[in-house]
């Protein structure tokens, strides 16, 4: 039931141009891409070894090729009509496990000695002759593992003093290391941590799914390689085992674990806000975000220790999984997740300039309408009942929901919010005087007693 396309790596919109003498291309026949792959894999009734095929998307015509893009003299050309499928075995220069199926081009041992031809018996006599081990592809002097040895592909060497040596072909899991949670990993690992083969992202079998390459063009969903398109802990893939939908892949972690390509910002966010590292911890509706290290009221898998480079500190809005905007779990049991669209997008809305107030800010007339923790201010008129006298005063000057100081609070302008946990708070404004706590103290003569003595009978 294994789909024949699993054995191929696809390159969109290219075709191969080969010299006419050493190459063969079959005449185009109309069929499905799957059938085309099966024909190339079976190699029946062909006068050549099929190494790749070219598929015309428009006419659905299949051309089998005796060469691939690594064949000497072959050129790759852009051609929007054709997709090229090449056998992965011939293309990849890394191994899974002990590399029993390795069919790559390396022909030098780990110490740099040239390999001896497999069909030659000098300088070392041996029994691994190509005709005896046909299925092991003992061509030329290429590194192979015909005896299933644990140390991987090897060869007899051309140095009479060294009979054979392994070729030190890297494990596919170590060819490319991953940073953070591997969202930018584009390496060649295509097996899961339990050794299952990955399902191609562009196939619907054995597992139907929504992660199609065309739907997520920037997620690197190529062939059947392990990827992390949705912010899981590590790269993963659907498996070719019908009873195991998906599994994580084991991929080497880079020594330095910075995300590199993410541009960190604090006052606004870029793109989808993966690099947002600011301290907004409330939703646009004023609901406080749940701490990332808490499992209440919402249980989740975004434990900060599993997403170290995502900076899941406190309850700050973050985008650890590539959603549209920074987001958070909320402290409202009925609202699991909310997008923090209250954070401005960089460049679109210029970050609010640093504003300050003089004195205690009772004359502040600016447009700031957010508390120091980023909660939007509520309209003053909604709180008329609680503080009728000064709200009326503010209504006269049409204060809207701007930060004001109608009760002459010495700690500065403030506002009401619609948040039940923080009904009011001071605003994100600074005093223009560096030490605004140095307010004049009352003179000794007018010193007020700290005590209120209750008069009792």
């Amino acid at each position, binding site marked *: 039931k294994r789909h024949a396309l699993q054995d191929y790596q696809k390159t969109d919109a290219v075709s191969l141009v080969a010299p006419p003498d050493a190459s063969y291309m079959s005449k185009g026949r109309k069929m499905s891409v799957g059938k085309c792959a099966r024909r190339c894999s079976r190699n029946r009734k062909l006068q050549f070894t099929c190494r790749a095929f070219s598929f015309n998307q428009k006419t659905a015509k299949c051309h089998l090729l005796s060469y691939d893009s690594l064949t000497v003299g072959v050129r790759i050309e852009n051609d929007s009509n054709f997709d090229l499928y090449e056998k992965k075995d011939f293309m990849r220069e890394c191994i899974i496990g002990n590399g029993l199926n390795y069919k790559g081009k390396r022909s030098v041992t780990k110490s740099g000695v040239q390999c001896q031809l497999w069909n030659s018996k000098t300088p070392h006599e041996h029994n691994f002759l190509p005709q005896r081990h046909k299925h092991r592809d003992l061509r030329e002097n290429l590194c192979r593992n015909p005896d299933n040895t644990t140390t991987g592909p090897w060869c007899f060497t051309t140095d009479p003093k060294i009979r054979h040596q392994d070729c030190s072909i890297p494990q596919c899991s170590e060819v490319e290391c991953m940073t953070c949670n591997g969202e930018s990993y584009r390496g060649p690992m295509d097996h899961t941590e339990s050794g299952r083969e990955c399902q191609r992202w562009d196939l619907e079998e054995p597992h139907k799914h929504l992660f199609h390459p065309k739907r997520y063009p920037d997620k690197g969903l190529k062939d059947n390689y392990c990827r992390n398109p949705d912010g899981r802990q590590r790269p993963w893939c659907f498996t070719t085992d019908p009873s195991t939908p998906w599994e994580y892949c084991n991929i080497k972690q880079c020594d330095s674990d910075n995300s590199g390509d993410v541009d960190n910002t604090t006052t606004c966010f870029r793109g989808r806000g993966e690099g947002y590292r600011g301290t907004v911890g409330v939703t646009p509706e004023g609901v406080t975000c749940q701490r990332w290290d*808490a499992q209440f009221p919402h249980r989740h898998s975004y434990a900060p220790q599993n997403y170290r480079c995502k900076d899941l500190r406190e*309850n700050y809005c973050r985008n650890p999984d590539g959603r549209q905007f920074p987001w958070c779990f909320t402290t409202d049991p009925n609202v699991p997740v909310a997008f923090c669209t209250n954070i401005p997008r960089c460049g679109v809305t210029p970050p609010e300039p640093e504003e300050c107030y003089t004195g205690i800010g009772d004359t502040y007339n600016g447009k700031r309408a957010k508390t120091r923790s980023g909660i939007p201010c509520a309209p003053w008129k909604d709180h008329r009942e609680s503080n009728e006298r000064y709200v009326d005063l503010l209504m006269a000057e049409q204060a809207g929901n701007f930060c004001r100081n109608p009760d002459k609070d010495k700690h500065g302008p403030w506002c009401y919010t619609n948040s039940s946990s923080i009904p009011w708070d001071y605003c994100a404004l600074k005093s223009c005087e560096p030490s605004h706590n140095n307010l004049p103290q009352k003179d000794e003569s007018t010193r007020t007693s*700290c005590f209120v003595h209750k008069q009792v009978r």
Partner: protein
Amino acid sequence: IVGGGPVRIKEGSWMVSIQRGSTHWCGGSLVREEWVLTDRQCFSSCVPDLSEYRVWLGISHLNESGENDFHRQERRISHVICGPEGSSLALLRLTQPALPRERVRIIQLPVADCRIQEDTICSVYGWGETKGTGHEGTLKRVHLPIVSNERCQQLHNRAIPINSSKLCAGGKRDEGVCEKDYGGPLVCQESNSKVIVGVSINGRGCARQNRPAIFMNVAFYTGWIHKVFKN
């Protein structure tokens, strides 16, 4: 508390032990049946994971058992309201109000912007570090004289700005507040009336001679506290 001695039963009935996990973490003062005043630095942020904190009231010894434990009231915290910028204060709202009893009482807040005269003898309370001065785990108290802000600034070599939002006490001897006392009160008395004039804060040194302890001046923040109660 370094120096001083254990508190008599019923005194210090406004004292609360803020427990983190199952150990004493910070001091605090019951200022209303459902409000505790403490040091903001006892919490990782203004939105901490509150499930790990508890407030104990009505205790004199942290490991009380039997009859004495009967007086203990345990409450969870529903909200941490951080004080104004630079205040280092926090008001904790309890999930249920404390029940006033012989050993659980609120302490009066000072009149807004009042001042305590220099050399007035006031007291600090806590279950924190004793530095070998005895009575570990028991609520202790030590008397400290109020030091003027100007004098305090001099004694601290002007390294810390002591403005009107702070006040100082102690420094005569190696005694005063220490680790895990922070958040607890500086209490002054006039006649029978006791008032919380200061809140001890973390990071200002521990009971050193010629280095008066620095407290947040509660009177400077009385307006904020009442506004939180009201709203």
